[in-house]
């Protein structure tokens, strides 16, 4: 007989377990598990900040369900090691009382526990109070201590230049380098990088972008200073990933989206999933395919349909070989306004009346305008070897006989014109005949097959108020100089006005027949510009531009000189050899692409100008400057002339350099700050410029500047010209002047100027000197 133990074990081993019993049990368990799964709290949003044991305990279910962030989970683990009560609470939640466990605690035991609970509660209340007091003053530090979040990224890939920028220095980052919290990271021109956060989220950083990693309340916050990022957010098991720009905050729990931040504002585009955008006091959820723009200037303008012209019967009558074309509205109302304004001024100052046509003449001009149609077209033909190709003015004659009478009453009625077939045509007899012939033979006009006509009809389709177009290729003769400048590739110049709901907008476009090259290719694609942050909101005027690559520009200039002025290039070579300086490598290569000039401060006794230049390698540039000063002084000493002095000192940890020119005692101060070289005639201006950037109180955020940004749907600019003379100059000089801004966009095969102020046709408004011009011209 086998030992009883073996017999029992064999029995147990061979225990009969019915398959259907197993399956039924499995079905019940699966059902319970599903129910339990639905109890799991994916994101314990009720506990935003952990300040007490109660908060810790509220997070325990989420901890046990592994739905907390690793940082919060670590925090709870640390706390439960220290805190017995929380550890017990965790154990209880982890292993709920089993039905087979022993009896519950007796009443006395529970009473004893209650007493201890009150004592502990009092202690915890005091501790919480102390924590609260400390928290008010050092909340961020305490939060980081109590609730650490791993805020860092690794540069996974770098294409071009990736920098980490400190106050006075800038260092290159390579793939694999770590980026810690609060470090300012910047991509260079024509550069991009991919960063990976600790939670696996990927940030694709586009060119000329700047960002800082920080922590938000419950996750990593990417502070996008400027530029574009595409974020592929890893699934946030708890909390959120944030992207914050100057004017909005995007929060996600796992999705793919893009954020652009520029001077005009911010734009959020969702690729996958859903994001939440907080813009001021308004919150909005965006789903895949949706966009949000923080500023109307980022939206394409919605035209006021009644003010725009979409078709024209007169274009078909434009002579063949037309190289310049204009479509203007009938200016009767404008003539009336100007005339009424002038009469008012004449009443105030009768001497002005001698410089203006008589009322009779003006009334006849107004009459002529009354009898014309709503559109007036002017075409300028050009044919090789042909003369008598006068410009042609064509308009619809609404009342032909009255129109003839009004024109004949004008003092300069020798102008050749005809009113025929419902048309009013002004030109030479030959051109008038040509237009009338085209009127009779509809569809036979060779102009309709030209590129210029295509551009004109395209403009009509989009709607115009007034419009100028010129065939630059035919107007500009192909010379070596125009080839070098890249102008030989220019096809058409178009200037147009469109009236939108929020006012008129003006645009000039210079199109090329291939990718911009030569001088025309220097202008960078639209990109965020950081130099503007060094300018105050009270600046008189600013001109800024983003260039593609200063080194390539130097090469272009040298190549141009080589072909057109060989002696000049020999002199430059001689200079470089004599002073052992390579202009391209030592001066241009350390530079970034941004250049800004501003008058930002008092005009008198000397204009408070400043120059801001983006610099990628300040140490190398400073070394070059020192070498050039030393070489200049060496030559000056040889000629027994005074040299240039370069001095430096450090104030509040900021390095300042001063170049003094002995002949005039003129001083130029400069410094390097946050990846830019700041140059000004006064150190105070440099310090102020730094403050504008540090505090954010710069022109980039001033209402005057932002209100002038054209609503053309573009996020960034390649350059701009801004004036606000009215802010500081006497009103009698700048009367009626308002701030104005012209934005410049370098696109692949065209350069675009866009503005809310009129381009070209009302120059005085652009430069803000209408009052001054009025003073000079009329008096």
């Amino acid at each position, binding site marked *: 007989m086998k030992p009883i133990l073996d017999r*029992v074990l064999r029995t147990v081993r061979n225990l009969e377990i019915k398959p259907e019993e197993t399956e039924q049990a499995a079905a019940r368990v699966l059902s319970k598990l*599903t129910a339990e799964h639905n109890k799991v709290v994916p994101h314990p949003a009720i506990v935003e900040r952990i300040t007490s044991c109660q908060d810790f305990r509220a997070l325990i279910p989420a901890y046990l369900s592994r739905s907390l962030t690793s940082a919060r989970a670590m925090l709870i683990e640390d706390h439960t090691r220290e805190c017995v009560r929380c550890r017990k609470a965790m154990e209880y939640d982890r292993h709920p009382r089993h039905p087979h466990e022993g009896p519950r605690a007796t009443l006395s035991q529970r009473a004893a526990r209650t007493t201890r609970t009150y004592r502990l509660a009092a202690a915890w209340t005091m501790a919480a109070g102390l924590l609260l007091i400390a928290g008010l003053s050092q909340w961020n530090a305490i939060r980081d201590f109590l609730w650490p979040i791993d805020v860092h990224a690794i540069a996974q890939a770098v294409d071009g230049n990736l920098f980490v920028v400190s106050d006075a220095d800038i260092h290159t980052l390579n793939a694999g380098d770590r980026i810690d919290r609060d470090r300012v990271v910047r991509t260079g021109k024509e550069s991009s990088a991919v960063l990976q956060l600790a939670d696996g989220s990927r940030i694709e950083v586009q060119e000329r972008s700047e960002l800082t990693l920080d922590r938000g309340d419950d996750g990593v916050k990417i502070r996008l200073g400027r530029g574009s990022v595409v974020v592929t957010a890893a699934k946030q098991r708890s909390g959120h990933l944030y992207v914050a720009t100057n004017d909005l905050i995007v929060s996600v729990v796992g999705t793919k989206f893009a954020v652009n931040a520029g001077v005009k504002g911010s734009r959020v585009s969702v690729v996958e999933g859903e994001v939440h955008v907080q813009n001021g006091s308004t919150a909005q959820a965006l789903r895949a395919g949706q966009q949000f723009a923080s500023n109307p200037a980022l939206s394409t303008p919605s035209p006021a349909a009644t003010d725009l012209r979409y078709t024209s019967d007169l274009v078909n009558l434009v002579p063949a070989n037309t190289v310049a074309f204009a479509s203007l509205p009938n200016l009767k109302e404008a003539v009336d306004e100007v005339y009424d304004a002038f009469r008012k001024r004449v009443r105030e100052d009768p001497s002005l009346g001698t410089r203006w046509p008589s009322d009779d003449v003006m009334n006849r001009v107004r009459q002529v305008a009354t009898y014309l149609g709503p559109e007036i077209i002017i075409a300028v033909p050009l044919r090789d070897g042909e003369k008598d190709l006068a410009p042609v003015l064509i308009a619809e004659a609404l009342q032909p006989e009255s129109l003839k009478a009004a024109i004949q009453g004008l003092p300069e009625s020798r102008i050749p014109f005809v009113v025929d077939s419902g048309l009013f045509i002004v030109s030479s007899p030959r051109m008038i005949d040509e237009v009338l012939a085209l009127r009779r033979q509809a569809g036979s006009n060779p102009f309709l097959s030209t590129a210029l006509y295509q551009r004109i009809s395209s403009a009509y389709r989009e709607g115009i108020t007034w419009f100028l177009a010129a065939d630059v290729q035919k107007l500009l003769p192909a010379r070596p100089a125009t080839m070098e400048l890249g102008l030989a590739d220019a096809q058409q110049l178009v200037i147009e006005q469109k009236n939108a709901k929020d006012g008129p907008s003006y645009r000039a476009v210079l199109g090329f027949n291939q990718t911009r090259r030569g001088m025309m290719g220097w202008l960078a694609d639209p990109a965020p510009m950081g130099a503007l942050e060094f300018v105050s909101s009270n600046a008189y005027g600013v001109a800024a531009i983003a260039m593609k690559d200063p080194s390539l520009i130097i090469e272009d200039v040298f190549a141009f000189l080589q072909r057109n002025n060989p002696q000049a290039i020999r002199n430059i070579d001689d200079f470089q050899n004599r002073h052992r300086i390579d202009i391209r490598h030592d001066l241009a290569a350390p530079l970034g692409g941004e250049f800004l000039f501003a008058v930002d401060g008092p005009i008198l006794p000397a204009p408070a100008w400043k120059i801001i230049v983006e610099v990628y390698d300040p140490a190398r540039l400073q070394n070059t400057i020192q070498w050039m000063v030393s070489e200049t002084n060496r030559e000056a000493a040889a000629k027994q002339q005074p040299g240039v002095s370069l001095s430096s000192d450090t104030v509040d940890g900021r390095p300042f350099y001063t170049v003094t020119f002995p002949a005039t005692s003129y001083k130029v101060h400069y410094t390097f700050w946050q990846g830019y070289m700041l140059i000004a005639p006064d150190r105070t201006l440099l310090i102020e410029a730094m403050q504008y950037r540090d505090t954010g109180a710069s022109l980039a955020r001033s209402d005057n500047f932002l209100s002038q940004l054209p609503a053309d749907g573009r996020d960034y600019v390649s350059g701009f010209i801004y004036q606000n003379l009215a802010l500081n100059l006497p009103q009698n000089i700048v009367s009626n002047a308002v701030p104005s801004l012209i934005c410049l966009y370098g696109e692949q095969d065209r350069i675009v100027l866009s503005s809310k102020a009129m381009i070209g046709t009302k120059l005085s408004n652009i430069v803000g000197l209408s009052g001054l011009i009025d003073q000079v011209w009329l008096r």
Partner: protein
Amino acid sequence: MATMAQKPQTRSLPQEFEQMFRKHHELVYRAAYRVTGNAEDAEDVLQTLFLRLLRQECPPQFETSPKAYLHRAAINIALDILKSKSRNVSTDEVESYIEDGRPSPDRQRGASEIQNWLRTALAELNPRTAEMFVLRHIEGYRNAEIAKMMGTSRGTVAVMLFRARLRLQKSIRKHLGEIV
């Protein structure tokens, strides 16, 4: 005023989890049934174990060898249940199981009681030893496999199993007096 309350949606179990459950539930249930001796406790074990997995409270071993982990975890949870339920077994009932080989109500009751005694005795063993014992004598693993599963040597397993066996035999003798 409109409220923003949303109707809660039922979330289905993760597909991967459900597949794992369907693949291994029989192994777990059967092992638990053998240790605990009843369907109710076996179902408790099944639920407890997969609830842990659902909450992702599983050690790294689960990732490398899920079947072995589940088997061991089922045994341990079952042993925990045995420990919480340990009670005395009637000597009379055991005697009837030993003396008479014929099937009878008393004998059936005696077989059940001696199994219960075994389970009680297992619950009194060191948990690690009890686990080894169950793996070897109930689940049928070889010493080498147990050593690998528990991260120890075959010699240690053999020694611990021998000691456990001696102790159980001693325990049953003590329990039944001179009957065995």
